[in-house]
């Protein structure tokens, strides 16, 4: 960073997907989540960073790569399946370019898909040899990208009663991050921004130096934070807490006022997988014949009605550039305003988003980001993009504030993950956590199969704790899958618990579970010990 800006802008993208890996099926619908995110979000974001690097445009971006996402990106089976998927998409797009030959309104879009899918294939397979983690690492090592971690399985900490359970989520995340990215994370994105007092101590103990809160988590903190959400605070445990700026968030997030709802942008829901003749799309939908999203979409948002106009890629790109200019303009005015109220201190505006918003939902999102970084660099000097860590290095003096329990979910607290659709999971998660702690305390140094069974029990508990399951139960779609995953992991936990308690480990059953739920190979169940000796 150079020069003295009025203030700093920290763009934070939280990339996470639950651990979904089903070797027992040849083609598993929920594995699409990963495939879609790779094609539509992760590769476009990496390509964007590549363009900026190539053109010598400095940028600063902070990204979570959640531990389950890292585990899936590192997984050989899922990598192979993605290669199959991108091949199929290229083939589909080739046929689409042909099919739309006499429909000029759609042909340009078909060509854009073909070009992007080919680029994705070439980057994934040829440039990065199937290793997206390496590509992210490249930008981290150049200092442009700060990669932070998340709770181990996106576990929602405020609803975990035991300190040991919180600690296991945090420590497991840090170790997995270190193994796959070669360096310990300095920051963490708490799943769903979910915080309760006490969590900061586990973070500090795991060596994490900063985390994020939703705005009210800081504003309702104690004592009242003097600089509001525009400066991080230090918790009692000595960890820095950054808070989300509601204003910059709303401009992007809001479905009504936000940029992604612009009529020129691509409509997410009209997809060739649903729109085209069944026999024709059959090879590109689920083998069972279930229609699904293919990622090829030809219409723009147009307006609130069902009638949709053809998508115009060039017009949409132009709009993304305009929106980047508008976003920058608003941040400049915001910084001028803040500077007048914060003498002697440069404010930071923290703008966090789900990474999958960019590209997957908001197709033009990566173009927006690229245009924003170019404009921030070339057109002004008031706002400087920075990572939270850089900000702390420049402004290490922080007010001590105990943040309030909060999340960034609906209503700002825990309701999304604790309501009549999903509250039944907690008695099971709490019970299993209690038992896991007992087992960890009772087995200081087990060997052989017992050790493996306990490690696997810890993995099953962590997987059951994914907040994604409760979230899906609340949203009411794909509920069966979320319920099934919760029940399966809890049942597997108790099966392993029985083996451990009875001292009779069934080797083949254990090996099968290890092979299936193969997340966190480095995990040591003693992370659950109450005395923190591990």
């Amino acid at each position, binding site marked *: 960073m150079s020069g003295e800006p009025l203030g700093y802008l920290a763009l934070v993208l939280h990339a996470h997907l639950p651990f979904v890996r089903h070797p027992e099926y040849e083609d598993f619908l929920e594995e699409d989540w990963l495939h879609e995110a790779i094609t539509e979000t992760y590769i476009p974001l990496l390509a964007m960073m590549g363009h900026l690097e190539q053109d010598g445009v400095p940028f600063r971006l902070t990204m979570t790569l959640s531990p389950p996402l890292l585990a899936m990106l590192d997984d050989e089976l899922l990598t192979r399946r993605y290669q199959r998927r991108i091949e199929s998409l290229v083939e589909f797009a080739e046929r689409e370019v042909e099919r739309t030959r006499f429909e000029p309104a759609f042909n340009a879009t078909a060509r854009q898909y073909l070009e992007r899918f080919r680029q994705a294939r070439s980057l994934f397979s040829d440039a990065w040899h199937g290793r997206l983690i390496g590509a992210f690492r490249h930008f981290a090592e150049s200092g442009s990208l700060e990669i932070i971690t998340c709770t181990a399985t996106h576990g929602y900490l405020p609803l975990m009663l035991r300190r040991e359970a919180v600690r296991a989520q945090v420590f497991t995340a840090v170790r997995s991050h270190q193994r796959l990215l070669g360096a310990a994370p300095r920051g963490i994105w708490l799943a769903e921004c979910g915080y309760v007092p006490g969590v900061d101590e586990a973070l500090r103990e795991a060596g994490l130096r900063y985390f994020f809160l939703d705005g009210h988590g800081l504003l309702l903190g104690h004592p009242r934070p003097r600089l509001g959400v525009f400066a991080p605070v230090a918790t009692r445990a000595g960890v820095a807490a950054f808070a989300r700026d509601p204003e910059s968030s709303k401009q992007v997030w809001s479905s009504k006022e936000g940029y992604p709802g612009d009529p020129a942008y691509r409509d997410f829901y009209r997809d060739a997988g649903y729109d085209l003749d069944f026999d024709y799309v059959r090879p590109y939908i689920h083998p069972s014949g279930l229609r699904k999203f293919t990622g090829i979409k030809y219409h723009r948002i147009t307006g609130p009605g069902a009638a949709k106009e053809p998508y115009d890629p060039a017009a949409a790109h132009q709009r993304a550039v305009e929106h980047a200019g508008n976003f920058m303009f608003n941040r400049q005015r915001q910084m001028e305003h803040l500077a007048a109220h914060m003498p002697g201190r440069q404010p930071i505006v923290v703008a966090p988003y789900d990474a999958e918003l960019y590209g997957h939902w908001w197709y033009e999102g990566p173009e927006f980001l690229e245009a924003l970084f170019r404009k921030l660099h070339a057109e002004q000097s008031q706002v400087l993009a920075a990572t939270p860590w850089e900000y702390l290095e420049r402004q290490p003096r922080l007010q001590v504030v105990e943040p309030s329990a909060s999340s960034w979910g609906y209503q700002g607290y825990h309701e999304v993950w604790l309501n009549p659709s999903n509250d039944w999971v*907690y008695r099971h998660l709490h019970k299993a956590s209690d038992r896991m702690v007992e087992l960890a305390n009772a087995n200081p140094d087990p060997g052989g199969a017992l050790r493996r069974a306990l490690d696997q029990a810890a993995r099953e508990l962590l997987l059951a704790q994914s907040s994604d399951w409760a979230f899906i139960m609340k949203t009411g779609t794909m509920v069966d899958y979320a319920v099934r995953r919760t029940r399966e992991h809890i049942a597997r936990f108790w099966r392993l618990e029985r083996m451990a308690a009875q001292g009779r480990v069934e080797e083949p059953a254990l090996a099968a579970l290890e092979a299936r739920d193969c997340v966190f190979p480095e995990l040591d169940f003693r992370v659950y010990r109450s005395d923190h000796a591990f």
Partner: protein
Amino acid sequence: MVMMARDPWWLFTYWDLSPERMAEGLAWAQGRPHEGVLRVYDEAGAWQDSPVHLDQLGHYVNIWAPGRQYVAEVGLRDQQGGFLPLLRSNFASAPPDQPSSDLGEEWVDIFGAAALWAASWCRGPQGLSSMDLALLASPSSPWGGASEHLASAWMAGSLASSWSSPGAAWGASPSSPWGAAAGQGQAGAAGPGRGRKFFLWSKTELILYGGTEPDAALTVSGKPVALRPDGTFTLRFALPDGDLDLEVKAISVDQAETLGMTHQVKKGTRR
């Protein structure tokens, strides 16, 4: 018995009453009329009763003051107001709903915070206590006869609890939209006519197919077409309204022979 704060105004509690504990309760009642009650206390000693079924799976409690610690008991109450607690929960802290009135300021260097860190471990009851006290406070193990209770609760799964959400409609939350996405797509994207009650849509495509010598060069309206190993080909085009000429031309591999034909297609739509 476990209690969690959901937000500044609501708590959620669940419990699991062992048959032995239940028997103690019935012995206390000695046949007098009685009802199951959830009693919630705040840190100042104020309390509030809600009628509950002792075998229900959970209960949401609307509390009277944000920013306080709460603890709950579930038990039996007779008509004279006598109360026998059967289980006690952990303490749960409801977050505040107002900014702190404490404007005191303490500033530290985040990179020199070691002393602060050490001190934090000796902190009083406001920090980790709510977590730590979670299980200490129970008068009896809430998981007595665990496996049976677990099994029955398991079967009951997500059956309704006593509370119906006042704000159940899913708002525009910025939390991970993935689950919602997949779902909305499935429900919403059933074709171009989605969003209406009754709808009709239909479109036309044109299939052009044929064959020539496998090593010949084939073009359709000037554009090269890849042949299958047996020399056949199939093309599929979206067919909009209007006139379309499709000129199919094959040139032999030695370029000595050329064959061609033109399909003339006229397509219109009447509504």
